């Protein structure tokens, strides 16, 4: 069998057994130490989570000592650097929600339809080529998408919408949607492919077309997976940073107008950390309060996605 294994090290079985049985040998110490060492390494992931929560929480608490909780979550103006600073997070939430919604308007239908094509219509050969090609999209660094949104998509959109500003929330939203397509397509396709063929064949036997089987059998059966892929897509859009930082500008606008510049939570974090906010100033602490809000938002989304796919999973 695997000749490479035996070739790498020539050891006789007798020698191994002798070595392992030798009372107080180094080997025994190693065997005892390794699991402990590995456990310490494994616990680092928990330490990372604790580190994130501790970092965000301690500074956020300090922020709320200075700015009332209610003012932060209901304030519609964010003017951190003015003479009379105001710290309402709503403009940032507005920017984040708007850009994520635009992204989902692009990504949800296109991603789902691509998944339907790959799972129901495409031949195995086509699927084997198209799926990895589609995943290339997900491998493109977000900074490249940001560059593309700013230097190409925005000028292009301006041909059609003359009132569009040079930095706006529409163009990064659309580009973010394209970025999320492969994620939704891939996860939805997994969910649809795992629907057993017997269910499809029952419907075909009654004379249904492929479209009818997809609509009435496959999608309902895979719904939990599809919904959780949407929720994960939204979570990804909420946390996305570079595209919005570059292409949506830094105006803290509380508006529904997508042609305007709006700032997202992530872009605000970039602006504040890049601007050398003095440690200890309220602006500095607002960074952590916004990051905490972002963290809680995405965490809830990820938990929601998991519970949806668990709770509504159909048992076949």
């Amino acid at each position, binding site marked *: 069998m695997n000749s490479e294994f035996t070739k790498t090290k020539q050891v006789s079985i007798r020698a191994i057994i002798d070595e392992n049985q030798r009372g107080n040998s180094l080997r025994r110490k190693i065997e005892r130490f390794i699991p402990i060492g590995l456990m310490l390494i494994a616990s680092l992931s928990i330490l990372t989570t604790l580190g994130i929560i501790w970092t965000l929480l301690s500074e956020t608490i300090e922020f709320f000592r200075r700015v009332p909780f209610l003012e932060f979550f209901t304030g519609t103006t964010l003017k951190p650097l003015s003479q009379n600073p105001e710290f309402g997070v709503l403009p940032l939430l507005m920017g984040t929600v708007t850009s994520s919604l635009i992204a989902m308007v692009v990504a949800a239908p296109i991603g789902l339809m691509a998944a339907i094509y790959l799972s129901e219509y495409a031949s195995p050969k086509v699927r084997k080529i198209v799926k990895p090609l589609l995943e290339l999209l997900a491998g493109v660094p977000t900074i490249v998408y940001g560059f593309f949104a700013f230097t190409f998509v925005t000028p292009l959109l301006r041909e059609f919408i003359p009132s569009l500003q040079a930095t706006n929330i529409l163009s990064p939203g659309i580009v973010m949607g394209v970025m999320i397509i492969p994620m939704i397509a891939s996860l939805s396709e997994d969910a649809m492919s795992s629907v057993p063929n017997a269910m499809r064949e029952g419907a075909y036997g009654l004379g249904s077309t492929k479209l009818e089987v997809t609509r009435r059998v496959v999608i309902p059966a895979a719904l939990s997976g599809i919904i959780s892929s949407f929720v994960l897509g939204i979570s990804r859009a909420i946390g996305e*940073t570079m595209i919005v930082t570059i292409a949506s500008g830094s105006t803290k606008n509380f508006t529904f107008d997508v042609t305007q510049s709006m700032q997202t939570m992530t872009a605000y974090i*970039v602006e504040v950390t890049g601007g050398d906010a003095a440690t200890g100033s309220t602006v500095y602490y607002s960074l952590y309060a916004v990051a905490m809000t972002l963290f809680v938002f995405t965490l809830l989304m990820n938990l929601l996605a998991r519970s949806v796919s668990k709770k509504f999973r159909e048992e076949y």
Partner: protein
Amino acid sequence: MKARLVLNQFSKFIFMLAAFFGLFFLVILLVRVVTEGIGSINIDFLTGKLSTQPERAGIMGAILGTFWLMLVVAPVTMFLGVGTAIYLEMYARKGKLVGFIQTNISNLAGVPSIVYGILGLTVFVRTLGLGNVVLAGGLTMSLLILPIVIVSSQEAIRSIPFYLSEASYGVGATKWQTIQRIILPAALPGILTGAILSLSRAIGETAPLVVIGIPALLIPFPGGIMDRFTVLPMQIYYWTLDASLVAEYANLAAATIIVLLLTLFLLNSAAIIIRNKFQRVF
């Protein structure tokens, strides 16, 4: 009756368009970037220093910075990621603790990269006082890609059939000997593939480094892990921002994107080659 069949054919066509839409977008993006940037790529650009004059600016500093960053990220994530995977797959008893660690890892994978940047800024740059040097950036990136490395290493280890380790135990090998001589060599292609793919993620990631505060100033070439640095994506970021003032910077950004994408393409090809050539199917 006929209408249903026509509708079926029509929607097939629509679904196919949707599947190819992303690829179409990718092609436009690539064509656009290449036409805009290819003119700026030459030896002077690749080996030159940053400069305030666009026509003299080069990206050697960013290339060296990326290199030094990987020199920190690769060993740290391999050590921590594979170690965690071995513990979870080989030692830990399946129970509440393992379930908790596993849930925690998948939650970490969903944390936005910019939050890792804030963790790095607070812990490595400020609390430990490293400053915005390669080491601080590298440790931050390592934590960011760690969940991906752990999960892919776990999958690689899990795919090794029981009979291999049982044969090893049967001839008297201890657990660690089995892991070291049988499991790890057999799982190595899978582990490496996952590690390379996550490294390419780290090479393209920008947000955590922006937060840590990579300087936009003209700094000397980094020569070690305690030096200040910049990387390719950061260079693209600053030049894209500058492009609204000086148009030439857009070309420099596009040229840097070409270099970055080529690097990622080479890494991904390496991962695919390793997967196809060395992956054994048991």
